[in-house]
């Protein structure tokens, strides 16, 4: 099947041309300034925003070549920029590249923005892009998976760079437009820094740079004086105190010690909202997949897996267990603008206890016991989901044996591919390309892939391979739709719902011009300001 149709060069350029001049005004945040704080008065330059967070970057610190943790991403997003970005509707927009075109099936060309400088004052050129991607290729990062088939990167001139592949790559452009994937670093600043400095400080073109990191205490950002966006950032700096306890963060907001706070628990954020603080729009970009091991036990039979899925009342899980802070979702999170959404036709998604019992009887396992392991020491807000699932499964005759397990015991499953019994719940977050949500359990290298050589996953594997090699967006979207349906039909993975990664809350009497973005990257901070 050949789906390698090439998008029109004219269309791509037109899209860039429409947004390009505007993007030059406000940076890669790329949103209409009136939409954010335009009705909140005139922006005020200066001042420091205090934004309390719960975690700090972990292994790899804030080095874009190494760090992948969520806490690191939200820090790196402020300091580093990408060639392209996606807007709130999921459309690709310019950032450090003003134009992009697919010259042929194997070649992508980017025209770089002029006048951009890194925070250290060195100019941003095509050589930096070449340096960046070559460094990614040499690094031990999972991001390299998006560069499959990349043959060479050529700096055509100081403002033009070409990526030449030896095979069609349907995920490359999405990865380049993903704020958290290929962040551009400079050969002069980042290249000259020590490994330790790269992990503790930033060297990007972004509006804010991390200039101080007190371990476990706070992160300090300073406005980038060389930032290319016109009139931004307004803030002179951002102070991020690290407060692990949700209730303490809430108290910090209520006492006025912080103007903005990020919560991970919707109920705490709701308390803040009820106290009069602004709760940002929720984006359900974290699906809660439950991985399946069909190698032994009852789940080897597809009918048992289907019965398990049919036993679940997903909307009740959202309404009761998550008190409404969830959204029906497929493997691809509901909040991903590029992802398909579940509907009434999604196989095995509508609860049918009678059908579930019939399938179990047909499989000769009317009362199977299925083990479900989950993080017992973290993500407490999600624990009621499993308890309610247990109740729902019991009605169909399935005993769900809940195993709250320490993180230290579960971590080897997704880091080293260690095996597990029946089911394991491991949340994941927004990814650059829809096909990459399937990698952990369908690709050959997937850590949670227990479907190798299992015929139940043959069709899904084929669809995934086709989607990854397809550049045409419409054809790819169709393949992804088929893929999610096939995964739901065979129940290769269970997804109870998607939840927000973060709940951002702020004091709208002190902090202005800010709105959340669908990707949780805090990309509107350059356009925001504070008033004492």
């Amino acid at each position, binding site marked *: 099947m050949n789906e390698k149709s090439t998008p029109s060069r004219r269309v791509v350029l037109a899209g860039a041309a429409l947004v390009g001049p505007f993007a030059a005004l406000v940076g890669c945040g790329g949103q209409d300034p009136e939409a954010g704080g335009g009705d909140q008065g005139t922006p005020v330059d200066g001042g420091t925003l205090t934004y309390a967070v719960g975690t700090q970057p972990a292994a790899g610190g804030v080095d874009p070549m190494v760090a992948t943790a969520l806490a690191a991403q939200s820090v790196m997003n402020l300091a580093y920029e990408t060639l392209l970005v996606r807007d709130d509707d999921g459309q690709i927009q310019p950032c450090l590249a003003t134009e992009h075109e697919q010259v042929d099936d194997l070649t992508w060309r980017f025209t770089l923005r002029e006048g951009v400088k890194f925070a250290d004052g060195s100019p941003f050129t095509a050589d930096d892009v070449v340096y960046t991607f070559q460094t990614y290729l040499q690094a031990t990062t999972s991001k390299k998976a998006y560069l499959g088939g990349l043959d060479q990167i050529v700096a055509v001139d100081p403002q033009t760079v070409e990526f030449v592949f030896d095979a069609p790559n349907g995920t490359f452009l999405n990865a380049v437009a993903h704020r958290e994937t290929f962040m551009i670093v400079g050969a002069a600043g980042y290249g000259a820094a020590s490994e330790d400095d790269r992990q503790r400080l930033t060297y990007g073109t972004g509006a804010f740079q991390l200039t101080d990191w007190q371990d476990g205490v706070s992160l300090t950002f300073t406005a980038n004086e060389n930032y290319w966006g016109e009139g931004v950032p307004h803030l002179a700096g951002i102070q991020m105190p690290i407060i692990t306890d949700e*209730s303490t963060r809430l108290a910090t907001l209520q006492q006025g010690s912080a103007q903005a706070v990020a919560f991970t628990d919707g*109920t705490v954020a709701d*308390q803040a909202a009820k106290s009069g603080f602004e709760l940002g729009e929720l984006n359900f970009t974290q699906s809660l997949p439950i991985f399946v091991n069909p190698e032994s036990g009852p789940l080897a039979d597809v009918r048992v897996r289907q019965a398990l899925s049919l036993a679940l009342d997903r909307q009740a899980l959202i309404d*009761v267990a998550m*008190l409404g802070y969830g959204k029906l979702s497929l493997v691809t999170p509901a909040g991903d603008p590029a992802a398909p959404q579940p509907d009434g036709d999604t196989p095995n998604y509508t609860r049918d206890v009678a059908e579930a019992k019939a399938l179990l009887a047909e499989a000769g396992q009317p009362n199977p016991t299925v083990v479900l392991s989950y993080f017992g*020491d973290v993500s*407490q807000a999600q624990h009621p989901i499993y308890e309610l699932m247990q109740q729902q499964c019991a009605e169909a005759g399935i005993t769900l044996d*809940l195993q709250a397990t*320490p993180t230290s015991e579960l971590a080897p499953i997704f880091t080293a591919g260690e095996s597990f019994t029946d089911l394991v719940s491991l949340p994941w977050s927004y990814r650059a390309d829809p096909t990459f949500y399937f990698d952990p359990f369908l690709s050959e290298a997937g850590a949670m892939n227990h479907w190798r050589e299992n015929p139940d996953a043959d069709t899904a594997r084929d669809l995934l391979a086709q989607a990854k090699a397809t550049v045409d967006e419409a054809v790819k979207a169709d393949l992804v739709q088929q893929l999610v349906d096939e995964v739901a039909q065979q129940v290769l993975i269970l997804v109870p719902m998607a939840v927000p990664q973060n709940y951002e809350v702020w004091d709208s009497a002190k902090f202005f011009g800010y709105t959340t973005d669908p990707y949780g990257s805090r990309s509107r901070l350059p356009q925001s300001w504070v008033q004492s």
Partner: protein
Amino acid sequence: MGVVLLGALLVASLWATIAPPFPPNTTVADPLLGPSGTHWLGTDNVGRDVFTRLLLAGRTSLLISGAAALLACVVGASVGVLSGYLGGWVDSVLMRLVDALLALPAILLALVVGVIIGNGPLPLIVALGAIFAPAFARVMRAPALALRQRDFVAAARNSGVRAPVIALQHVLPNALTPLLVQFAAVASNVVLLEAALSYLGQGVQAPEPSAGRMISEAQRFMYSDPLLVIAPAVLVVLLSAGWNLLADGVQALLSPRRGSALPTRGRRPVRRVDPTENSPQNSAPPRGPETLMPIASVPNQENRP
């Protein structure tokens, strides 16, 4: 007072076991309902009846504290009596081992043991029993050490009674009071430790109710629904206080000053000077409670071959 408190909790637990007001692990109403005539303490975040779960949490805690203390008592007292009675290198080795275990923080040890043998009530009982056994060993070693020098023990030993029999039949009964007091005190500590472990997610597992788990689950709602935190916290206090009061009661009841025949915590009975003290029949060393022992049945040394 302790007996009354624990008895009341036991009755409530039995009620919840035999005829619970609601299924404890099932969603029976909307989440986070306030107290009402139907749900006396409201519902939790999954819509389960808090009162029913609280009663069953009390049962779980009573069961674990009682069983773990009993296990610790059996193991620890055996080690302590053997150590004190046998003395020598056995005493040294056992006591250094006990010292080493006592030096480790109980909660850390419980977490490690939990990781090794798993979670749930039975592993908890085993883990907590093992953790508190050294406390019993320490408590029992002292009276055993003292009693082994006493005449009736020497008589038994000289008459050929084997050491384990002497330890069990002669030494252990004479150290019963500190053992009982220690039992209640340890049970009180087990209540707190079990609650802590369950709070940390390493104790009683979902969906079974436990006071620690209930506090942990309700922590997110402590501003909007404080009763969800307060109720299980009060249960922990009542259980712990109940066992502590029982310990005090046992000590008071069996105290020699109340005329008890059993010695307590190494205290010796206060003897008043008796004018007949120097009479021939009283010239023997002061006779304590050991006179209760069937010493008459032990042949004296002269009768030994």
